[in-house]
């Protein structure tokens, strides 16, 4: 897994509390990413088994709001994310390097 700027931001949000459940808009705001960047990334992470998703239980107090899909890191995902984030922060000037090379499955790695 190559760490791009947007991916790094998403992983930081997820690692901050690995047990927390996040829905898409929540992650968009926390990582400050547009939906067109976030969702392809979530799909890829899920495909690689690093991310787990589940549907929200329909609550009576939701006011007819449709159930959301929540994402959470798997145990493997939390391990890999911590490792990658640690590696990225250990490398000086790593930001520029990761931004220059697009990660597999994403388009462009710009911040």
């Amino acid at each position, binding site marked *: 897994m190559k760490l791009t700027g947007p991916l790094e931001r998403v992983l930081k949000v997820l690692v901050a509390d690995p047990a927390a459940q996040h*829905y*898409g*808009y*929540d992650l*968009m705001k926390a990582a400050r990413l*547009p*939906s*067109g*960047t*976030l*969702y*392809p990334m979530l*799909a*890829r992470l899920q*495909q690689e088994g690093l991310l787990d998703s589940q549907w929200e239980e329909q609550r009576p107090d939701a*006011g*007819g*709001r*449709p*159930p*959301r*899909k929540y994402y959470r890191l798997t145990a493997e995902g939390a391990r890999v994310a911590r490792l990658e984030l640690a590696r990225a922060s250990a490398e000086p000037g790593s930001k520029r390097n990761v931004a220059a090379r697009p990660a597999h*499955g994403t*388009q462009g790695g710009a911040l």
Partner: protein
Amino acid sequence: MSRAPAVRRIAEWLIHAACRRLPADERGERCREWTAELPAILDDESVHPPFRRTLRALAFSAGISRTTRRLSRSSLAGSRRTRESQWRAGGLPARPSDLAVRVARGLVVWLVVVAGLVTLITVLGTGPHPSTWPLLIVVALGVGFDVYCLEDIARAAEVRYLRKWLWVVICLIQMPLGGILYLSIGRVGPARPVPPSSLS
């Protein structure tokens, strides 16, 4: 429940259109996931003024459109042939109606342009010395855009749906909108060549 049901409906419609790009087995679930985010966006109290929530919901839908394009290209969706058969198995129209999507895209661009122009006029026109020159700028921009469109029509070997002269009339009558409609619907860009079968 929602503050702006019309906006929500438009955004939902855009997401549905985008989801038709996906293979049938993922389509329903993804579509439900993304439309379920809309209430959170439209009722997000931390975003002021409410108009920005509308823009955010529309930007969200546009991002979903990019997402499905990317997902359908990636290996997730498998080869082109399996995707085609999955589309058919889905019971929905095989593909998003190209025309409807293009019209919607054109309208969104038009809305953005009009909103931008209105902002420009109010910002420039309410200064200490209100004058007519902001209006002139807007008119100059519109004329410039129109000239660009007319030139494009004149150079194009082929245009879609209507005859060339009709597109010219539309561009001239509906100044900003006509040109945008032409570019979004009528233009045969280099990226979407006309299939040889329809030329012969």
